């Protein structure tokens, strides 16, 4: 039977990796992801998980090693953050087109400079186009559940793509929450053994990752893009099966009090819990405000998002990333593209908030909603605004 325990989210994530029976874990510690791989190395050293834990010399090596072990047919997990994710960057683009279903947790953290160990989404937004499936967890339970879902979907033979589960650094990774930990029998039922289409095997040799000459490169990238888009069907099926076994239902886009809402906050990750409190208070004050949360970021769930926003007039998008010199934050830009020239589409404004561990409070959310409603009447000069920034 599954049991409800009070546990640090990183420890629960590591325990979930063990429940998923990962076979190879090449990893390098970096704050705030460290507790995940630290605990995994303990689990392996204590003999509780029959896996190779490879303490590599860098994140570049960690991802290279992960590609190798996945290509050899092993269920592969790693985790990283921030500068570590950036150091992986060169390798991150390989497993997608090569169809290697590595599962990774990213404990989201700001990028230097200035050096910051604290939470925002700049690390993962830099890696937006690596061609992995990407989800964002809101709380500890979801971090565990989305991780199990990641193994289930990534290794599905119809998908065979790498998968990142994003959890907010510190605000998720380091908090102790009540989490229902599933039992082994349930997880085994949910995640079947990994059976890849091809694996590196001297008895049946194949070459993986050869050169793509101009006559095939476009087609290779097209095949990968189509596979990523087609994965959504299995992602949804994976959540349906999850609900059947574990009783918790997940969707690509979640809504909170969106009925008859005129203004919607749009969030990703743990910040959404504060946003819900803000929505409650604004609703109590008679404002028609709701919340839409994006759980599935890649492939982007366009139809689900369009359905979720209903007839709202204004979207106040929270971007936890400031792309210097850009027209708009990445989430805001995505939604503007999605809804451009759609009849009746809402006005969209991006609010850059919560950078480098700055808290986004209930009052900030109220300020954001007020500003979005003002800008809907009187268009601002810029398409985004940095919230809570001190001038002098």
């Amino acid at each position, binding site marked *: 039977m599954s049991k409800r325990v009070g546990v640090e989210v990183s420890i629960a994530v590591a325990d979930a990796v063990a429940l998923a029976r990962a076979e190879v874990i090449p990893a390098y510690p970096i704050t705030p992801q460290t507790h995940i791989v630290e605990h995994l190395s303990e689990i392996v050293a204590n003999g509780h998980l029959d896996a190779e834990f490879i303490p590599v010399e860098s994140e570049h090596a960690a991802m290279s090693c992960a590609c190798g072990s996945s290509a050899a047919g092993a269920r592969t997990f790693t985790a990283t953050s921030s500068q570590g994710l950036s150091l992986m960057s060169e390798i991150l683009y390989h497993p997608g*087109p*090569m*169809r*290697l279903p590595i599962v990774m947790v990213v404990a989201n953290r700001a990028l230097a400079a200035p050096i910051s160990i604290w939470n925002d989404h700049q690390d993962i937004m830099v890696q937006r186009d690596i061609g992995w499936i990407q989800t964002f967890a809101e709380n500890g339970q979801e971090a565990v559940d989305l991780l199990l879902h990641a193994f289930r979907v990534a290794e599905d033979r119809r998908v*065979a793509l790498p998968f990142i589960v994003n959890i907010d650094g510190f605000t998720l990774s380091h908090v102790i929450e009540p989490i229902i930990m599933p039992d082994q029998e349930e997880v085994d039922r949910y995640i079947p053994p990994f059976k890849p*289409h*091809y694996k590196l095997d001297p008895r049946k*040799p*194949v*070459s*993986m*990752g*050869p050169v*793509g*000459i*101009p*006559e*095939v490169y*476009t*087609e*290779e990238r*097209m*095949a990968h893009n*189509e596979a990523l888009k087609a994965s959504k069907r299995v992602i949804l099926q994976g959540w349906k099966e999850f609900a059947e076994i574990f009783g918790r239902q997940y969707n690509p886009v979640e809504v909170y009090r969106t009925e008859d809402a005129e203004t919607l906050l749009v969030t990703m990750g743990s910040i959404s819990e504060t946003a819900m409190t803000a929505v409650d208070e604004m609703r109590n004050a008679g404002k028609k405000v709701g919340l839409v949360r994006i759980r599935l970021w890649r492939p982007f769930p366009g139809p689900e998002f369009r359905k979720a926003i209903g007839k709202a007039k204004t979207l106040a998008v929270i971007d936890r990333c400031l792309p210097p010199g850009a027209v708009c934050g990445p989430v805001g830009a995505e939604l503007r593209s999605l809804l451009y020239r759609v009849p009746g589409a809402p006005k969209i404004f991006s609010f850059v908030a919560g950078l480098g561990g700055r808290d986004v409070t209930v009052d900030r959310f109220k300020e954001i909603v007020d500003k979005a409603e003002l800008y809907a009447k009187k268009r601002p000069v810029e398409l985004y605004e940095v919230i809570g920034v001190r001038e002098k």
Partner: protein
Amino acid sequence: MAISDAIIGWKTLPFGGHVLEPGSTAKFKTGDWKSQRPVTDNSKCIKCGMCWIFCPEMAYQQTKEGFYVANLDYCKGCGICAHECPKGAITMIAEEGGKCQSA
């Protein structure tokens, strides 16, 4: 020369871009882009095999008579053989005709 055409459709590409047939490179003649080729003067050649040893493409093969001949389907024209030949028996000839300046 600009390359504009695809040679295989994205739906028929092998899964993951893998090469599923081992040793398939042997089917391809990979030396068609060289700008110069080695020509050996057999009257100077002492059959020492230095060209055969140093050739990075393993393009040299020995004939029945004991001389070494580069297979031009695989030779890239790098000129290492000409550089290493102790008797100066190998000359690099430009593919377009005439003698190379470096030879």
